């Protein structure tokens, strides 16, 4: 294990800002379900979730439960943090969209671009749990 190992008691994720547009996502997150938005007009999934499709401007979008699996597109280990190092990065979901997130439950120095990861939910500071990813 390296000195940069993510500590479970490290950085606390602040409460996410919840909007009328994103409320269903966070309600599902509270139940441990990871939702993405898909457009029924053009068929594409997008991230972050919007009420409309950013590719074809249709209102015909539906929430879809995702297994939350994908691969690491990129990441960076933030060493300057009062609560210890933490990892920010993007996951390319198997459904297509890239998701900004934290990588947890891992040795940060062992992470690699292209590595398979899976979603899990982490408590936040007074808000709904937030999706984070760990090695699959």
């Amino acid at each position, binding site marked *: 294990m390296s000195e940069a190992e993510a500590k479970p008691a490290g950085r606390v994720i602040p409460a996410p800002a919840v*909007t009328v547009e994103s409320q269903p996502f966070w309600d599902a997150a509270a139940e441990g379900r990871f939702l993405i938005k898909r457009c029924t007009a053009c068929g594409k999934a*997008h991230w972050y979730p919007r009420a409309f499709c950013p*590719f074809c401007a249709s209102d015909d979008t539906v929430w879809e439960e995702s297994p939350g699996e994908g691969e690491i*597109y990129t990441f960076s280990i933030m*060493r300057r943090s009062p609560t210890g190092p933490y990892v920010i*990065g993007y996951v390319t979901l198997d459904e297509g969209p890239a998701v900004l997130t934290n990588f947890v439950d891992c040795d940060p120095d062992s992470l690699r671009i292209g590595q398979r990861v899976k979603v899990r939910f982490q408590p936040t500071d007074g808000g709904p749990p937030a999706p984070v990813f760990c090695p699959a």
Partner: protein
Amino acid sequence: MSLKGKAYIMGAWEHPTRDAPDKTTAQLHFESARGALADAGLTFDDVDGYFCAGDAPGFGGMSMVDYMGLRNVRHLDSTETGGSSYILHVGHAVQAIAAGKCQVALITLAGRPRQGQGGRPGGGARPGQLSDGAPEAGFENIYGGSTHNTYGMCAMRHMHDYGTTSEQLAWIKVAASHHAQWNEHAFLKDVVTVEDVVNSRMISDPLHLLDCCVVTDGGGALIVTSPEVARSLNRPKIKVIGSGEAPKGPSGGHGLDLTYSGAVWSGPRAFAEAGVTPADIKYASIYDSFTITVLMQIEDLGFCAKGQGGRFVADGNLISGVGKLPFNTDGGGLCNNHPTNRGGITKVIEAVRQLRGEAHPRVQVANCDLALAHGTGGSLGTRHGAATVILERE
């Protein structure tokens, strides 16, 4: 209608302070404006167009117009694209002048991040309260993104895709430090080596401490005028012959590619308007929030092929008098100044110095008649605004 040559930069002034505990941000805006107006040979009463961005205290441009005593303003623009705003404002000033909306445009920037005054706007909702802020906030702001780690993500992927190395990135800082040693106002004046950079402590992988720009208080201002006003002034005429701007973001998450910036669009727009190519440019001011910022923009502007930036910047190729593309001869944001964490205006100011022949003699580019200034504002790792201007000495 071509905007080529429809306006001139006739005043440019960089505030000498790098640490200003004894002044307000508004005061630094005023002093910068006064400096640029004096440089041009104009007064506050000559200003009829005012341009500022989010660093200007108060309500849009109105507080600053009132505070500075600008009595004749008939055109306002407070477009905010972070650190690139002021480069974008030059292009907007040309448009406004060409359209007859103003004749003397004043652009100001100032701030005091060293005094804890540089915080960015925004912030999430309180727990249990619905937010109506930036639509991405709930899905992004909670993950601890900062400039360091979001640019770190870009560097990590660029290294993965193109084999770029930390040593190659370090050459960008080395070149900046070679220039900064001659700048009496530079925040960091010491020449550094590639080893110094790669051995400095890791901030956010793969960016080391010396891959990061300085944090400085300060300010700057520019005066852009109509050709008629320019002809009446006793300063070298720096003609704006091309400008371009572009936003870039994650675009719904499909095809995310953090290895290029909005310069792939703003650059060609500016070059097309100017009717010149990257090979014609004698001096380039390239936004340098981090070393990776420079490398990506050099590729995206067409100074070398995509992915070849690491080889291009190595071995002193950015050092004035040594390499093929002298850049940031004031020491740039990496060594000289990054006032209020926004480096756009100092990019234009040093390009103007070069074109006037007023750069430090040790870094002055010979026969410098064509220069480029380019900036990125926001974050390369999420969403940003790119702006390019091409300037010619008349």
